[in-house]
Every structure is written in structure tokens, then in C-alpha cells.
């Protein structure tokens, strides 16, 4: 029977349940009919005959039911028989069983972990009610799609739009929580009152914000996440109504959010109302806006309403200078997962599936080799009358048993791998909405994968075993010769495919690793060794005084500088590698405004020596750049390259608005004189090519929302501790938030690249090992069967070298073919990977070369080992085996 018709028979057996039922019905009915007819032949009427037959026997249905029971019983019985037999066979070859189970456990474990990620991030539906009605709204400057929203515009949008049931603005920050003991920093999301209505969320305890609670005077209320309630307040139900001290003000706890939801996975620990002044500025864009569409309103309708509205607002306030600005409306869920993360997950999922396939090919190979060895046993069983179907079922039971045991181990491995991935990634890497867990859905996927793997690696050998002619196998005496030529070819194919897939994975992993390596060695523009930094959360709601801020900053810097072990300390409006803090539109005096913006960082003078930013021209900021003095600015090298190539920047001016202390609007236009040029500090990620930015003196632009950086020697954790103490000496309620070394910050910024590189690299190595095991397995098997031939050749005068060449030559053919195919595949994959690579070409010669070299040498080792063993064979003993 051919391979295809055998498969078809197996499949139709599964699909023909209905047919079997009909058959049974007809069969039993015929039995009854014959008896009825017999009685009618003796002169009874049909009715009488029917009645008598019914009396004599059980009813049709009861008989059929008994048949079904009997079949069920017998199929369970044979299954148990097969299982017992399979277990016995597997116990007899522990080496094979161990290898097979390990292969499956590794492959399925990797699949379980990665599928959990894919399922949690990409597939699982959101738990928000009617999530398709939630949208995100942005301001749309000319030439860009999305920009943060200003307070003034948000107020108008919320008041004037009709498309939305609820609209809310939000912004993040940290708050100092002082409830006795050391102050601690809590992540706060400051939101408009309708925020929870947008997401359709209810409090588990108490309530969420009432409509008027984002108005001044009514806003000292706070909603806690379940996480915070459990962690800090001990899950005590009486917390609702309690007063807590945040940023030195007293807030009333009004509610606790439900546990285990996106709120518990999110960044904020608590939610406080966002209060917008009636005259909130339109030129400082620090808000994000979310909204829920009114029922029946389409996103297109909302979009066109918002565009009209935003354009109208821009025209109403020409003084703000936002001509041409509009609005963008996105479906919220569409914006959650970026293209980068999507392709990362797709690549990882493909990689683990490839590993699984390689593993399957390996096992199919091994099982085929075994079934050749066992062909005598199989032939004997078939000669005794065992049906082919039965033999196939027996072998399939064996492979399914293997894959099930492997899968059980795999679940454990997968859970471990998943926990590891989650522990390495920064907590807010995946969107809060994604709930990643090795749950029922994943287990279901795993169960399906298990059955499919079992079938995949069990079917081919089973069919082969059943196909072979019993008589021929017996004649061959289990040695196999010409008849196994086809099997040998099939196995060579397997090897070639394995090699190709492993090579593709290895190239992908290699490219990502190389790109990561280059990224980590990128010049960050400053000297990061010995630098620690942390944020200083401040109350963003009040109206701070400039003089007070400057005094406070000076005290902090002095206190930090006086610490032993700290060489330099400074304040900055954004920490190294954490963005510029503010982006400012600018133009050159006397020239037309263009759509240009520059990173704008406010620093105390110590910032330059603390980071050891290299001075390229002019001078850095000093204590002499004071409040009343001429406004000066230091630009970076990247800015000069972008706009002032070939000119002397020193003494030139740029026009840009001044930041105001509250940082909720921007002040008047100022003509800043460029006094110096420094090396470009990487702020917007290590992979950015241009990072145009400038520095203004804190004394000239005092603002809230600061961080502290300090350079010191010695143990960074001790440094952080003494920095913290210094901060507390100035202000007992001031928290040092997320203090860490700048080296750690750098690690954090590359985590989204490190993890896929590490995982893909790991999977690639696994694939390589599996493929080599496959090569080795096939070759040693083939070689073992050629022992006799080797003996004859040796007796005829072939040297060891000749024999080894013979084996290696035969074995390397599929390896080379696989490498060739893999090369083509790798190029295709690399094209897909290109967007994830940094300063690395998809055709990176070194990667391709080293991966090929690695592969060839490992593959050759896998070939040479069995060849060497074969060549050592003593000709006489080999011949005697006859």
C-alpha cells in the first residue's frame, strides 16, 4: 500500500464514524428482518411476526448499544496493551528514550513559553468592555502624525466634541508617600475624572472618581491599585476613607481597583485627579488623551469631527502659532503593540516551531533507524497475522507515548523559561493589557502540538515499517540492504532539511547578537562608569516660585557634592539615556520658522563634569550663568552637524521658547546665544543616529521635575545610599526614585533587543545541537551497517584515510545541500530582520562566515566521529560477522 493511501485509510477511519454507525444499524436490522420473514414464511402476519421477534430478542437499539460498549472496551483494551508494550520497548532502550524525551521536552517547552507570550500579547482578547470603542487622540502637527496634547486643547476637545461618551487626559509622575518611616516613591497616574469610564473599569472597593473631582479643591482623592493596597496597606478593607500623605498633601482614599487586572500589571501604583486650569496653556504638550466612542459612532465619524474641531481651535488662537495643526484618532488596541514587538514575537514563534520541526525530523530519523533494526520483529509479527493497521497503531502509540512524556516535562521547562523571560524584561515591556501566563489556552496549544509531533515523527517510520514486505525482511535476515536504500535517502533528506533550518536560525541569532554587540559598544558620548542617577519627584500641581526652586536645587547639589566618595553632582531635567525631557521648536533669528525641534535639557553646571561630556568648542555652562544674565545655551555635536555644518557655532543664536517652572506651559521666546559645543550624549536610545540637543542653565530656567546625577568612586550601591541620605538631609519628604547606575540604565534601554537576541541565539544553538545529533545518528547508523563492507575494503588494502573519506564524503553531501538551501533561507530571513538590526547589514559577511564555519566544523565532527570508529574496524572481525 502506498504512503498516501495508507494515510488516507488512517484518516478515513477517523472521519468515517458515521458510516460505521450506519453499517451497524443495517447489519442488526437485517438480522431482525430475516427472523421476521422466517415467521411470516410459517404463515404469521407481519405484525404478529414482528411482535414475536421483538419478544424473543432484545430491541434493535439495545443490541447496537451493546456492540458499541464491546467495541469501546476492546479498543481501550488494545490501547492499554499497546501502551504497555510501548513502555516496555522504550524501557529496553533507555538511551534512545532519554534523548527522544529530552528533545521533545526542550522543543515543546520553548514552544509553550513563546506561545504564552504570543497568546498573551497578540491573541488574547482585551478584558475591557467593548474595547473597539476605546480610542486614543493626539494633536497632529504639520508633517507628523502624533504629538502629545496640550491642556488647553484637551479642555476644548472634551467640551465641544459629540462623538465620545467620555474623554480623559493623563500624565505620569512619581509621588512621595510619607506614612511614617522613610518616604517612598509611588508611581502615580494623574488622570481626568472620566478616565475609568473610558475603560469601563469599576472599583472593587469604594468607587472611582466622580465627575467633578478633577476640579480645584475637590481633587485630593486617590484610587489605589489592588497591588498597592495589598502591598502597602495590607489589603485592609478599612482603607477607603483613610487619609494618606502624598507629596506632602493629605489625600482621601476613595477606592481600590480590582486585582489581577491590567491595572495591577501597569506602571501606576495609584491614580489621582488631573486638575487643569481654565486657562491651561496650548503650547505645552504633556498629556495623552483617551476616549470612549458614543454607541453607534464610528471611528471615521469621530476622526472627521476631531479634525474639524482641532483645525478650528488652531485658527482661533493664532498667537500660539499652531497653524496647520489637526488631530489624529487611533483605535486604542491598535496602538498597544508596536510593529517591532509584533515582528519579534513572530520571529521567535517561527524559531521555536522550527526547533520543534528539527526535533521531529530527528526523532523520525531515529525511529526509522530503529524500525529497520526491528524489521525482523515486525516482519515476524506480521507473518503471525498482525494486521498492518495494527502495526502502525503500535508504532504510533510508541511515539505518542514519547511525545506525551516529553510534553509533561516540556510544560515544566516552558514555565521556567517563561518566568525567566518575565524576570529579565523590564516590567513595563509588554502592554498592561496583555496577560501572559502558561494557562489553559497554552496547555491546549501544547496538547495539540504534542499529538501533532507524535504523529509527525511516528507516522513516517510507522508507514515505512508497515509497507515493507514481510517475506523480504525475513529473507534479508534483518540486515537490510538494497531495500533500505529508499529509507536511507529519506533520512538524508531529513538531515538536509534540519541543517537548512538550523543554519537559518543560527544566522538570524548571529545577526541579532552582532547587532546587539555593536549597540552596546556604541559611543554614548559620555563616560558612564561610576555615574549613578535617580529622579526627584515633585508636586506638579502647585505653582512653584522660581527663586525657591533655585535655592532648593543649590542646597541639593551642595549636599550631594559634600559627600565623601562623590566627585561631582548635578541636577538635570532628564537623566542620561532617558530622553531629553522636553523637545522645543526653534528657529534661527531672522530666518523663516521651519518644522524643527531640538532636545532641551535644563542642567546645573556640574552636569558636564559629572558625565565627562567632551567639550568640542567654546565653554560649558558655569555658576556665572545666572537668572538675570544673558541667556546662553550649550549645543551638542549632533545639532551642529544637522544645522551648522562648516560654520562656527560659537556666538550664534537660536530662538526657542523658555520653559516655565510649572512645566505645564512654555514661556516667551528667547534668543539664546550658543556658548559651547559638547559631544552628543545619546538620549533617545543607543540606536539613534541624530540626537540634536541643547543645555540651558537651571538658574536661567528653573523647572520642576528633576533628576540627580552623581559621579563617584567605589561601590555604586553605597553611592546610591549616601546620595539618598543627602537628599533627605535637605528635604525629609523628598524621595530618590528609581536610583540606579547609568550602566544599568543602558542595560535597560537595550533589553528589548537583548532578549530576542538571547532567545533566538539560544534556540539556534539548540537547533544546531539537534541537527548535529541528527547527522551523527544517521551517519553512525549507516556506518555501522557498512562494517562488513569496510572490512572487505580494508582487507583489499584501503587505508584508514580512504575509509574515513568514504564515510565523510557520503555524510557531508546532505549537510552541504542543507547549508546551501539554508543560505538562501537565511538571506530571506535577514531581509525580514533588517528593521531590528543596528548598524549591521542583513548580509553581514562576518556573521555569515562565522556561522557557516561553526556549522561546518560541528557538522564535520558529527560526520568524522562515526567515520573514525568505522575506520578502526579490524578487517578480520568484520568479515567474521558474516
Amino acid at each position, binding site marked *: 500500500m502506498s504512503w498516501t493511501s495508507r494515510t488516507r485509510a488512517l484518516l478515513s477511519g477517523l472521519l468515517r464514524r458515521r458510516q460505521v454507525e450506519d*453499517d*451497524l444499524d*443495517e*447489519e*442488526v436490522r*437485517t*438480522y*431482525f*428482518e*430475516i*427472523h421476521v*420473514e422466517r415467521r411470516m414464511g410459517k404463515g404469521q402476519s407481519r405484525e404478529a411476526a414482528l411482535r414475536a421477534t421483538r419478544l*424473543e*430478542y*432484545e430491541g434493535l437499539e*439495545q*443490541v*447496537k448499544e*451493546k*456492540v458499541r*460498549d*464491546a*467495541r469501546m*472496551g*476492546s*479498543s481501550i483494551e*488494545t490501547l492499554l496493551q499497546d501502551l504497555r508494550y510501548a513502555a516496555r520497548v522504550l524501557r529496553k532502550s533507555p538511551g534512545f528514550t532519554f534523548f527522544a524525551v529530552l528533545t521533545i521536552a526542550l522543543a515543546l517547552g520553548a514552544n509553550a513559553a513563546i506561545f504564552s507570550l504570543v497568546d498573551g500579547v497578540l491573541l488574547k482578547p482585551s478584558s475591557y468592555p467593548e474595547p473597539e470603542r476605546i480610542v486614543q487622540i493626539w494633536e497632529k502637527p504639520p508633517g507628523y502624525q502624533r504629538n502629545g496634547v496640550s491642556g488647553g486643547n484637551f479642555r476644548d476637545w472634551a467640551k465641544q466634541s459629540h462623538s465620545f461618551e467620555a474623554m480623559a487626559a493623563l500624565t505620569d509622575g512619581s509621588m512621595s508617600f510619607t506614612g511614617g518611616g522613610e518616604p517612598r516613591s509611588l508611581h502615580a497616574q494623574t488622570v481626568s475624572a472620566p478616565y475609568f469610564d473610558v475603560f469601563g473599569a469599576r472599583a472593587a472597593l469604594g468607587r472611582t472618581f466622580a465627575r467633578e473631582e478633577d476640579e480645584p479643591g475637590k481633587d485630593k482623592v486617590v484610587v489605589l491599585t489592588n497591588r498597592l493596597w495589598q502591598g502597602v496597606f495590607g489589603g485592609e478593607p478599612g482603607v477607603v476613607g483613610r487619609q494618606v500623605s502624598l507629596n506632602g498633601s493629605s489625600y482621601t482614599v476613595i477606592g481600590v481597583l480590582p486585582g489581577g487586572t491590567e491595572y495591577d500589571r501597569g506602571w501606576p501604583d495609584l491614580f489621582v485627579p488631573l486638575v487643569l486650569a481654565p486657562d491651561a496653556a496650548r503650547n505645552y504638550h504633556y498629556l495623552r488623551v483617551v476616549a470612549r466612542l458614543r454607541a453607534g459612532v464610528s471611528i471615521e465619524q469621530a476622526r472627521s469631527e476631531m479634525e474639524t474641531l482641532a483645525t478650528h481651535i488652531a485658527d482661533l488662537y493664532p498667537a500660539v502659532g499652531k497653524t496647520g495643526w489637526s488631530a489624529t484618532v487611533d483605535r486604542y488596541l491598535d496602538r498597544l503593540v508596536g510593529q517591532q514587538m509584533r515582528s519579534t514575537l513572530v520571529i521567535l514563534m517561527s524559531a521555536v516551531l522550527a526547533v520543534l520541526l528539527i526535533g521531529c525530523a530527528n526523532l523520525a530519523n531515529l525511529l526509522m533507524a530503529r524500525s529497520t533494526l526491528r524489521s525482523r520483529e515486525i516482519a515476524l509479527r506480521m507473518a*503471525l*497475522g*498482525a*494486521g498492518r*493497521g*495494527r502495526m502502525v497503531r503500535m508504532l504510533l502509540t510508541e511515539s505518542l507515548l514519547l511525545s506525551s512524556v516529553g510534553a509533561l516535562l516540556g510544560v515544566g521547562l516552558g514555565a521556567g523559561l517563561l518566568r525567566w523571560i518575565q524576570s529579565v524584561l523590564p516590567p513595563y515591556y509588554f502592554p498592561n493589557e496583555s496577560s501572559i501566563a502558561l494557562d489553559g489556552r497554552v496547555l491546549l496549544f501544547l496538547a495539540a502540538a504534542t499529538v501533532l509531533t507524535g504523529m509527525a515523527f511516528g507516522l513516517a517510520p510507522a508507514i515505512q515499517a508497515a509497507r515493507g514486505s514481510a517475506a523480504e525482511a525475513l529473507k534479508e535476515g534483518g540486515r537490510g540492504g538494497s531495500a533500505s536504500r529508499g529509507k536511507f535517502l529519506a533520512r538524508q533528506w531529513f538531515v538536509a532539511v534540519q541543517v537548512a533550518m538550523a543554519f537559518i536560525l543560527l544566522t538570524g541569532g548571529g545577526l541579532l547578537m552582532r547587532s546587539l554587540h555593536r549597540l552596546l559598544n556604541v559611543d554614548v558620548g559620555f563616560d558612564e562608569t561610576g555615574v549613578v542617577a535617580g529622579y526627584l519627584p515633585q508636586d506638579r500641581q502647585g505653582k512653584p516660585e522660581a527663586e525657591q526652586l533655585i535655592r532648593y536645587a543649590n542646597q541639593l547639589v551642595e549636599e550631594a557634592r559634600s559627600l565623601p566618595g562623590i566627585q561631582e553632582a548635578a541636577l538635570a531635567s532628564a537623566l542620561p539615556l532617558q530622553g531629553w525631557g522636553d523637545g522645543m521648536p526653534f528657529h534661527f533669528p531672522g530666518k523663516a520658522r521651519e518644522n524643527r525641534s531640538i532636545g532641551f535639557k535644563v542642567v546645573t553646571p556640574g552636569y558636564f563634569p559629572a558625565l565627562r561630556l567632551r567639550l568640542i568648542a567654546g565653554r560649558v555652562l558655569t555658576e556665572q550663568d545666572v537668572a538675570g544674565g544673558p541667556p546662553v545655551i550649550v549645543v551638542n555635536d549632533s545639532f551642529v552637524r544637522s544645522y551648522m555644518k562648516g560654520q562656527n557655532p560659537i556666538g550664534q543664536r537660536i530662538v526657542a521658547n523658555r520653559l516655565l517652572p510649572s512645566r505645564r506651559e512654555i514661556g516667551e521666546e528667547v534668543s539664546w546665544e550658543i556658548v559651547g559645543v559638547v559631544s552628543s550624549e545619546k538620549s533617545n536610545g543607543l540606536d539613534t543616529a541624530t540626537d540634536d540637543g541643547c543645555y540651558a542653565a537651571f538658574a536661567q530656567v528653573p523647572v520642576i521635575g528633576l533628576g540627580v546625577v552623581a559621579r563617584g568612586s567605589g561601590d555604586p550601591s553605597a553611592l546610591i545610599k549616601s546620595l539618598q541620605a543627602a537628599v533627605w538631609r535637605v528635604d525629609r519628604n523628598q524621595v530618590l526614585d528609581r536610583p540606579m547606575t547609568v550602566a544599568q540604565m543602558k542595560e535597560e534601554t537595550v533589553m528589548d533587543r537583548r532578549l530576542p537576541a538571547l532567545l533566538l541565539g539560544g534556540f539556534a544553538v539548540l537547533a544546531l545541537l539537534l541537527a548535529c545529533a541528527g547527522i551523527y545518528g544517521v551517519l553512525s547508523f549507516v556506518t555501522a551497517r557498512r562494517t562488513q563492507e569496510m572490512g572487505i575494503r580494508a582487507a583489499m588494502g584501503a587505508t584508514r584515510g580512504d575509509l574515513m573519506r568514504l564515510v565523510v564524503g557520503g555524510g557531508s553531501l546532505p549537510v552541504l545541500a542543507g547549508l546551501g538551501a539554508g543560505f538562501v533561507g537565511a538571506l530571506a530571513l535577514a531581509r525580514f530582520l533588517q528593521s531590528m538590526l543596528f548598524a549591521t547589514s542583513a548580509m553581514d559577511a562576518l556573521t555569515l562566515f562565522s556561522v557557516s564555519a561553526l556549522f561546518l566544523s560541528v557538522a564535520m565532527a558529527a560526520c568524522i566521529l562515526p567515520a573514525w570508529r568505522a575506520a578502526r574496524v579490524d578487517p578480520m572481525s568484520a568479515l567474521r560477522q558474516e
Partner: protein
Amino acid sequence: MSKPAELLQGTLDLLILRTVEHGPLHGVGISDRIEQVTNGVFVVGPGSLFPALHRLADKGWLEGEWGTLESGRRAKFYSLTPEGRAQLTVEKRNWRKVFTAVNQVLAEES
């Protein structure tokens, strides 16, 4: 006709296998044949016949095939597979062993 005897556990399988040994038979044919040969000692109703037939077929000892009766009616004919033939030999041997042993016990008694 005396009351039909209770069948010994497992005996029905042997009877069926033996009954179809010389050629395919359908359900009624099998039960008729058993009744005839045993002079009415064993009467196998459909409630035990069909489950046994299907169990034996699942074990691969019997093979069922649809054919036509003289009356033109379609019926399923059962015949021995090679494996079933081997099984019949085994069961016959076992039965003789048991039969001889039981007879010896009975002979001792008298």
C-alpha cells in the same frame, strides 16, 4: 428442546471463530449454524452475537464484508483473517487442555 445452556466465558469467541473457519457467514447464518451443530444446546441471540462479532473484528481476527443473500438482501459476511486463524489454533489448544483437565477431575470422582 431443552433450555439452552449458559455459555462459558470466552467460549463464544471460540465457537464463532470455529463456525466461520470454512467460509464467510452472516450474523443469522452464524447463530443458525451454532444452534444446529450443538443441537440447540447453545442459542446465541443478537445481544451477545453482534458485540462478539465486532470485538473479534476489532482485534483483527474477523473481517466483515458486505455481500448479497439469495433473497437479494444485503448482509455483512464475516470470515477469518490470518491472525484469526492463528488465534483459533491457540484457542482450540487451550480448550482441549481445559476440557481434558476437567474430564480428568470428573473421571476421578466416579
